[in-house]
């Protein structure tokens, strides 16, 4: 009855009263009053109608799942034992701080990505203990086709920036798992995420696709890890588990090099030169005109080239902790100087990039407790996490030595240093569902000296880096917690050479459109620091992004 009345009012105002408001010639106090009333009616009924329409739309959206209805559920019914899931995700990021050239970059573009990924995951259960899993990714970044920017040509260097078109990329994970309550054996291509922190500390097993550079977030790791073929065996004792990995496979990191939206402004030469230098793009040369030989990579046919890792975990009441060891390869090749030659341009070096062995030693721990009698808050549940990875003999480019060699001195232009990356995290559950995480992160290069480049696990551009990350999130109750707001502040402090390398601020509004659809609006700001600092170089890369996801 109420509903009928409202619809009637809407029809009336739409057909008659609203048009009366346009009769200016007959304007009088009375008509003005009537018109005002009519407008109010229009506004009210229109608003109410809009509200009703939106509510009806929401109700229909809540059960709208065409992928599940027409694909996964029918297939699962037809093939008992098969489990099928799909995800379609789209990300678009756009610069808001102009399109001026910055450093060596010809930045004549606004878009940072227009990327869509379709994930199809299938697992078939042969028995309660035996299962085959296949996870496939189909990626396409329209940015390279839509934009005519001269600064975007990374797809010429590596087609995977634009789309996945090889078995290696599309078949992300493919493994057989055999499980008993105490034993877990997983054989095949897979990704492993060790650790408990936001950020990568002992999470070091897989190489990464770093195309998003400083904007790669913890939530993206799942998508950006490069899976490896391996044997993954875990044995569970009572409160202890031992995980052993044997990894014949190897993948190098994918870095945002020439022509990528996130290519560092500090990377010479300029784009106008780089994009026309095929030897440079093919990594047969470098900006100094040196000759770069083929990279020496681990060979899976040699047993001695395989990687091995082990992890031991303990659960003891409110405390859990673990130890890890990883006999690994460096993900980025180290450019050793192995000779020199002269040509018409002068003297040059011969560089042999090589992936080198590393020993990683790590520890992880967390502890929970509830504090009582906290002023203004009362009871405060919290968790403390700690994690560290010590790496032996990481390789750094030694630019001073390289300069000396170029001038006729001796050396290979590389220096070995131990590194430490570690973090503490304090997570609090405040009233009103406010979650706060304070995570001071620390990076240190032992025996650091001026002129060192970047090495695994070490500080960037300095002896130590310190990033006290603060994350706060809160759902909006009036949306029944469907709208989640969060902010992440990442100031990057440094010493003993630099003081401050800028900061990153990330604001996210994420909304559950339906149980199957999710949307996020993300604003990322880079500020502070100098042009040659970690975040400072990206000061004009503030961007706004949207993320849409459908899971079925």
């Amino acid at each position, binding site marked *: 009855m*109420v*509903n009928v*009345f409202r619809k009637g009012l809407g029809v009336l105002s739409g057909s008659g009263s609203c048009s009366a408001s346009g009769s200016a010639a007959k304007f009088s106090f009375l008509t003005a009053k009537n018109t005002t009333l009519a407008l109010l009616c229009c506004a009210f009924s229109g608003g109410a109608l809009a509200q*009703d329409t939106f509510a009806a739309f*929401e*109700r229909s959206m*809540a*059960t709208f*799942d065409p992928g*599940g209805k027409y694909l*996964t559920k029918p297939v699962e019914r037809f093939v008992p034992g098969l489990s099928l*899931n*799909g*995800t379609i995700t789209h990300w678009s990021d756009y610069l808001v701080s102009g399109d001026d050239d910055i450093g060596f970059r010809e930045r004549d573009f606004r878009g940072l990505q227009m990327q869509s990924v379709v994930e199809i995951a299938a697992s078939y*259960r042969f028995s*309660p203990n035996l299962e085959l899993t296949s996870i496939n990714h189909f990626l396409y970044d329209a940015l390279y086709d839509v934009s005519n920017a001269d600064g975007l040509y990374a797809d010429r260097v590596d087609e995977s920036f634009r789309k996945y078109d090889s078995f290696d990329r599309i078949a992300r994970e493919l493994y057989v*798992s055999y*499980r008993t*309550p*105490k034993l877990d054996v997983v054989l095949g291509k897979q*990704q492993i*995420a060790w650790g*408990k922190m936001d950020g990568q500390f002992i999470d070091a097993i897989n190489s990464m696709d770093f195309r998003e550079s400083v904007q790669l977030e913890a*939530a993206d*790791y*799942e998508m950006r890890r490069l899976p490896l073929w391996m044997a993954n065996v*875990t044995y*569970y004792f*009572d*409160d202890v*588990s031992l995980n052993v990995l044997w990894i014949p496979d190897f993948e190098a990191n994918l870095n945002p090099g020439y022509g990528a939206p996130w290519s560092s402004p500090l990377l010479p030469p300029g784009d106008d030169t780089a994009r026309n230098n095929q030897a440079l793009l093919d990594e047969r040369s470098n900006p100094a005109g040196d000759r770069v030989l083929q990279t020496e990579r681990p060979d899976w046919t040699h047993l001695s080239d395989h990687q091995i890792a082990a992890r031991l975990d303990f*659960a003891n*009441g*409110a405390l859990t902790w673990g130890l890890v060891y990883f006999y690994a390869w460096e993900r980025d090749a180290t450019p050793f100087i192995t000779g020199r030659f002269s040509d018409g341009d002068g003297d040059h070096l011969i560089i042999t990039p090589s992936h080198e062995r590393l020993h990683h030693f790590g520890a992880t721990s*967390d*502890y*929970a407790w*509830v504090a*009582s*009698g906290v002023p203004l*808050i*009362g*009871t405060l*549940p919290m*968790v403390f*996490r700690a994690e560290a990875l010590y790496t032996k003999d990481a390789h750094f480019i030694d630019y001073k030595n390289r300069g000396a060699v170029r001038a006729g001195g001796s050396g290979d232009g590389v220096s070995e240093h131990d590194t430490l990356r570690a973090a503490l995290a304090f*997570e609090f*559950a405040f*009233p009103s*569902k406010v979650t706060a995480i304070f995570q001071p992160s620390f990076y240190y290069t032992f025996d650091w000296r001026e002129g060192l480049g970047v090495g695994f696990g070490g500080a960037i551009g300095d002896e130590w880096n310190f990033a006290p990350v603060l994350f706060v999130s809160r*759902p909006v*109750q009036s949306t*029944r*917690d469907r709208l989640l707001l969060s902010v992440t502040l990442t100031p990057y402090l440094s010493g003993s050479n630099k003081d401050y390398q800028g900061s990153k601020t990330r604001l996210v509004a994420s909304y*559950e459109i*339906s*149980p*199957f659809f*999710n949307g996020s609006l993300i604003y990322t700001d880079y500020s502070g620091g100098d042009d040659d600092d970690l975040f400072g170089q990206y000061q004009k890369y503030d961007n706004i992004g949207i993320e849409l*996801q459908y899971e079925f």
Partner: protein
Amino acid sequence: MLRRFFPKMKARVGSCVLLALLVFSAQVISQQSAEGGDDSVRQTSASQTWRSVEQLTDWERQRVDLRTETPRNKDIPYLPAEPYPFTAPFTAEEMGYRTMDFTHTARWSHVMADAFGTITKAGYLSQGVTVGMIDQMLSPNAQSQIFKQPGEAYSRHMYYYTYPPKNDGVQEMWILRRSGLEAPAKLDYFAYTPSLRRVRRQPPPRRETSFPGVVQSFDDILGVESWEFDWRLLGADVLHETVRFPNNRPQITLSSANGKFYDVATDSIKLMKERYPFYREDGGVNCFVIESTPKREWLADYEVSKIIYWLDQYYFYPLRIERYDAEGKLKMVEVRIAEEENTALPNGQGFASSLVVYFDAQLDLISYSLHDAHLIRDWTEQDLAQFTPDFMRRRWLKYPQKSQSMVSVPEQFYLRPDLLEGRFPEQRPVSVSPAIAARIEAQNKTGHLVFDIDE
């Protein structure tokens, strides 16, 4: 593990004898109750189902102990001296302890599919399914919780979410701990998120705060610990319905432990299903109504002023629970349909929540949780290796219990529970906003939820 404490044969024989005695006595008592008893006929109107303490029947008076000060346990002064599970007559406090047998999740080791959902006043429906594996570490009742040392674990829960697709593979582990003044934490809480592929310890949820997007709080799920509250008897009442199905949902599909699905007519579902022997002739269940208020030395900042329970008078199964906020306003109504899932246990301890509906009377939010495909388990030593946080990294859904009990369309969602206005009016300020009252009126008139209500 159950056998160690309750050898099956003995338990079955014992429970049969007990059941026979209870059935016999209950029939006599039910007849008395159904007829109202001398006192009730004299002091209440024909339509009034509730009675104050002064209006209790003779049998009820024999069943309850109205003392508020009783001897205390010499070792743990905040516990009653009489050992759990107590004998009649029962104080309100002892009834409160008995309610601890009937937490949302059954008190014995088992596996089940928990189908759950929430609907907003506008009809936005979200649902999910999680498969729970429960390890009750000692006895299959509240005893293991009561007599553990503060901080000691008494139960371990593993949950594997299978629906909706975005949650497929999300897992949680809860290690439940007995609380104490010096050990206020009730659980260790771990989560595994497929997108992070990490097992992370989480801060324990704030106990009285609802989980994101649903009505129920952590304490609604795990139950309160009786020593943290003061208890008093308000009187007696009769419940004829708890969970209300809409008239456009004539049947529901449920699953047995072996995964076989079967349909049930919704109008045939009784408050405590078929095995409850104490129904009144009119189908109702006689209840005691008790009130608990937080002890502020235990729960200084607890944003709840009181909780009111309707307990069946024989097993003290809570069929209806009302939670009032710090200002004394009605916040949440929980109504239950129970079923005797574990017939090996005595004294009705085998009853467990089958279907629970939660109603947030301030936000007008309705949630439900339906426990399906209930499979009692006796975990072997090897099985117990599953109950560790690291087990979740394996992403192994060992028991693929399924449920087809979810709601198809918003209009078929469960109705808001009856507010039982007028019952115990001095203790129960059950007013709701005019907008919510209009929606309740509309649902009662049509027999199903109505979303387009003029506010």
